[in-house]
């Protein structure tokens, strides 16, 4: 029987097949490239970002990280554009806006199967409030952020006022602010809250703006505790011990809070965060940290947040992306950022090694981390921020501008019930509640 191919042809075919197989094998070993968008900041500066990439690639030679470092002001536009276009979004990024959450990869199973990382490694409340969405794990909390009151010790000493302590009340805050205010020095005692139903609201007792089942605002938005909180705001504004919103705008704090006035010694106390704390420490300000004031007997709340580090649902390399995510937002990556930058990690075991851990201000900061987060309620009630807060903003504005009398607070809030109820009813079918 004659062979179908002669020997030479068979040899050629064999060589070709071997070549194809070897090329295919080599291709399979080519490193996978993961795109990562992040921000350069004092907490996580460019050298720290590069160091994370270097350390990860050394451990994972088959994964390459293509990092894009961008400015804070650019980030939102770029994420909106790429998510809107449906392509071009990075494999890994901060997904901090709620509308971006449906575009994140569910990593619940991957995290549960991870032998090196667990949700228990993180601060519990930060994980629950910032990494979980609709019972899915949609990311890992990167760093911890919280509001607290920073007080300028030099201003207090100059005014002969004792430093505040953790057991102070909201009315103590007003009295201290008045004592620190000095018009000749263009100095205010303290700042104003930046919105209702944040920590101090809840510390007074106004724990929520509407019912847990998201059906009614009556008795919540205008309940006795809410009236007490709004009246406290009225007293603070009336005291003249705080800069007006116009002062804050004119003095150019660019939406970052009144940290500039605080650093300049023109604001004795300010509700700031740990990012501001680092800024003030670097500027050589002599300051201390206390939790926001609260009413004895009430639960203490803190307005806190984490950066949500997530994987884009459209990634072509979910396994490799998770490898990097768990490195960057896990103990190794956060430790690198802490040591090179000034990151405060979301993992207690890493945070306890913080370089300035003995400093008074850091101890003060640690003191607020255990309070209940305002995000706990907000996370399950999305209509508050998107709809109801707008409907009741008139009451806020009228008090901030000094346009109503103290005894008109109750009536003003009563007038907000109808628009707030309408906003809630419109929103709940849309966003849930």
């Amino acid at each position, binding site marked *: 029987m004659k062979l179908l191919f002669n020997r030479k042809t068979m040899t050629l075919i064999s060589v070709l097949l071997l070549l194809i197989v070897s090329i295919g094998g080599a291709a399979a070993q080519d490193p996978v490239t993961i795109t990562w968008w992040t921000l350069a900041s004092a907490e996580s500066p460019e050298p720290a970002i590069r160091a994370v990439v270097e350390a990860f690639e050394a451990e994972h030679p088959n994964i390459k990280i293509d990092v894009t470092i961008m400015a804070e002001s650019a980030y939102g536009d770029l994420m909106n554009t790429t998510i809107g276009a449906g392509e*071009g979004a990075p494999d890994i990024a901060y997904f901090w806006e709620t509308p971006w959450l449906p575009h994140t990869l569910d990593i619940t199973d991957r995290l549960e199967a991870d032998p090196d990382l667990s949700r228990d490694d993180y601060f519990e409340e930060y994980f629950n409030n910032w990494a979980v969405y609709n019972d899915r794990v949609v990311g890992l909390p990167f760093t911890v952020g919280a509001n607290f009151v920073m007080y300028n010790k030099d201003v207090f000493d100059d005014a002969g006022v004792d430093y505040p302590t953790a057991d102070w009340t909201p009315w103590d805050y007003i009295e201290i602010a008045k004592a620190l205010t000095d018009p000749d020095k263009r100095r205010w005692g303290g700042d104003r809250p930046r919105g209702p139903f944040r920590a101090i609201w809840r510390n007074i007792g106004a724990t929520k703006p509407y019912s847990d089942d998201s059906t009614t605002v009556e008795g919540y938005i205008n309940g006795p505790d809410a009236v007490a909180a709004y009246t406290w705001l009225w007293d603070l504004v009336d005291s003249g011990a705080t800069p007006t919103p116009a002062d804050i705008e004119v003095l150019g704090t660019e939406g970052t809070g009144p*940290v500039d006035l605080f650093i300049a010694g023109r604001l004795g106390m300010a509700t700031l965060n740990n990012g501001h704390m680092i800024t003030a420490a670097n500027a050589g300000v002599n300051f201390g940290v206390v939790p926001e004031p609260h009413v004895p007997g009430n639960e203490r709340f803190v307005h806190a947040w984490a950066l949500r580090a997530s994987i884009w649902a459209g990634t072509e390399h979910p396994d490799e992306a998770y490898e990097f995510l768990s490195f960057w937002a896990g103990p190794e990556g956060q430790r690198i950022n802490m040591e090179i930058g000034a990151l405060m990690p979301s993992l207690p075991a890493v945070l306890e090694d913080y370089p300035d851990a003995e400093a008074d201000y850091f101890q003060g900061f640690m003191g607020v981390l255990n309070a209940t987060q305002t995000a706990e309620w907000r996370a399950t009630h999305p209509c508050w921020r998107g709809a109801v807060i707008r409907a009741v903003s008139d009451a806020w504005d009228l008090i901030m501008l000094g346009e109503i009398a103290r005894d008109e607070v109750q009536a003003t809030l009563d007038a907000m019930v109808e628009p707030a109820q309408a906003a809630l009813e419109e929103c709940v079918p849309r966003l849930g509640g």
Partner: protein
Amino acid sequence: MRIDDQALSIQQQLRRSGARRRRQRLVGHALVYAVMIFLALLFMLPIFWMASTSLKLPREIFAWPPEWIPSSPQWGNYAEAFGKYPLGRYMLNSAILVAANIIGGLISVPIIAYGFARFEFPFKHVLFLLMLSTMMVPGHIKLIPMFWLYQKLGLIDTYWPLILPAYFGNPFFIFLMTQFMRTIPRELDDAARIDGAGAWGILFRIIIPLCRPALTVVVVFTFVWVWNDFLEPIIFLRDWDSYPISVGLAFFQGRYSVEWHLFMGATLVSIIPILVVYFFAQKHLIGGLASIGIKG
């Protein structure tokens, strides 16, 4: 004698009134200069404040009373700003983008405007209106489709998305240039045509040399717009080393605070090229704008 006396008297009166007019003119000039110096100082105040802030410590920036001239200038702020981010590289990148856009504008705008100003073709007015209408579309609306397009073309993270549009003509400049060209007498074209020049010859030898004021407007405006453009570079660029200075400056504005002293130092250095360009081009620029405004 009487006549001589009268003549002398008239001469003296004339001399006196001449001296009075000179005095009045002098006072008038002095007043004008005083007002101009006052306005110049007023307009320079923000730049002076920027320079002052760039030499302060963070705690001095918002201090009261404000310190106009820092008692201990922090010259190291400049070194810190340029050491923190590669601002020199970013300025070079901006210069490359500016040069490429200016070249693109100088090529595309006169050619397109020449077509609208000198030729008749079907739907000319409709096309001109269509082109003008693109100016009414807000830039943000175009971002997602443009991103999608350049993504498909594989041009993300290159300078092409920031350069290519200039080579297809900017509608605002085309409008300006068309209006300017319409003011140039057609007899010049006819004379050139009699001498044997074709359409391209007329454009390059007659029209473009006469359009120098309008071209200066194209150059200066392109320079300022591209130098200051922030949104498009952040959408299309990814590489840390490829950012322009507008993006580099944004790094000083963090999530929680702004490093004002470094930010002001870097900004002050970054506006120097714009000031230099304006200084050298102002004569042509003002002339160009005025002639477009009057003749257009």
